[in-house]
């Protein structure tokens, strides 16, 4: 596996905070997880009606699903298995070619 399979089961969520209140709750939820923000690049830049793309480690995905559902915040998962997407992006072709 590429990167020693470290992204197996990781997911990328797309979250849609529609009100200032939801913005506050999303910041609070993500502030308590160890996440990798793809867009925007920091919690302070999260704004109303602007999408939030966030990479979540496999062992935190269930917790994030639960919290967002509890708070009735609109979201969807746009990459369900990050490791698979990484393999697809460059795949074995490049390592085979490099060999």
């Amino acid at each position, binding site marked *: 596996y590429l*990167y020693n399979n470290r992204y197996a089961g990781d997911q*990328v969520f797309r979250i849609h905070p529609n009100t200032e209140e939801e913005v506050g709750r999303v910041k609070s939820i993500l502030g308590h997880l160890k996440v*990798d923000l*793809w867009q925007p690049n*920091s919690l302070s*830049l999260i704004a109303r009606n602007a*999408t939030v793309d966030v990479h979540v480690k496999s062992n935190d995905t269930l917790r994030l699903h639960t919290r967002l559902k509890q708070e009735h915040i609109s979201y969807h998962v746009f990459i369900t298995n990050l490791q698979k997407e990484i393999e697809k*992006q460059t795949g074995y072709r490049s390592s085979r070619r490099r060999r």
Partner: protein
Amino acid sequence: SASQYDYEVYHSLEEIQSWMFEMNRTNPDLVDMFSVGKSYEGRPLYVLQLGKRSRPQKKAVWIDCGVHAREWIGPAFCQWFVKEALSSYKHDSVMRRLLNQLNFYIMPVFNVDGYHFSWTTDRFWRKTRSKNRKFHCRGVDANRNWKVKWCEEGASSHPCDDTYCGPYPESEPEVKAVAKFLRKHKKRVKAYISIHAYAQMLLYPYSYKYATIPNFNCVESAAQTAVSALYSAYGVKYRYGPASTTLYVTSGSSIDWAYRNGIPYTFAFELRDTGYFGFLLPESLISPTCTETMRAVKTIATGLLKKC
């Protein structure tokens, strides 16, 4: 060799650097290669200069890619630009005129340490790889480290944050090296273009405040023409406008610094996509993404040859 190099796959830093040497070796009339300095981990910061050696004080365009390590489509575009420019010089009158009348400084990988790290260790690394004396976290956001409104709104002073502005402006050797080069050549450099991903936007100053730049009409018109040229390839829509209102307020960015340094046209491209693949844009989309961006960059460069 140059003819077998595959521009429709992502390449490691080593492959890109040997490709640069090959471009320099096989195109003596149009290419020069030089280093503007060394990265934090001591890697050379290579730049290719493209252009006919017609006269000394030609106007110039600077294009850097790979400021943020995980945005791999950036370096892919810089390589694509060089390939297209050199291969079309003979049969494309627009490109021939551009290379005869302008020099293009192309920096395929600005953040060489971070890019190498994103290939070998952490695919989603963003920052440089500099060490911090007080914190275990590494790296500075190379697009928050420029000496313009440094470390104010939209940047973080915490070393572990992805938008960390650094211990002081131009603390990063990579930023300092490019800033030094652009300061030295600021009379000739008329456009600064920095390639990022993803969001499908074309951004221009200001990033750090909600205000209008003095030459707004010329820059806005150049952006509009560029986005239309981009759309003409495959119908992909890019939003455009001042970074502060089109994306969000950020301080210490390269386009604001370049603009304040006297370069009248400074742009940041946020290439495909808008969030289906994100940073993992498949190799199958390198060609259309680079083709459409090529059209946009050519119109910006062509605009420099006219009076606004």
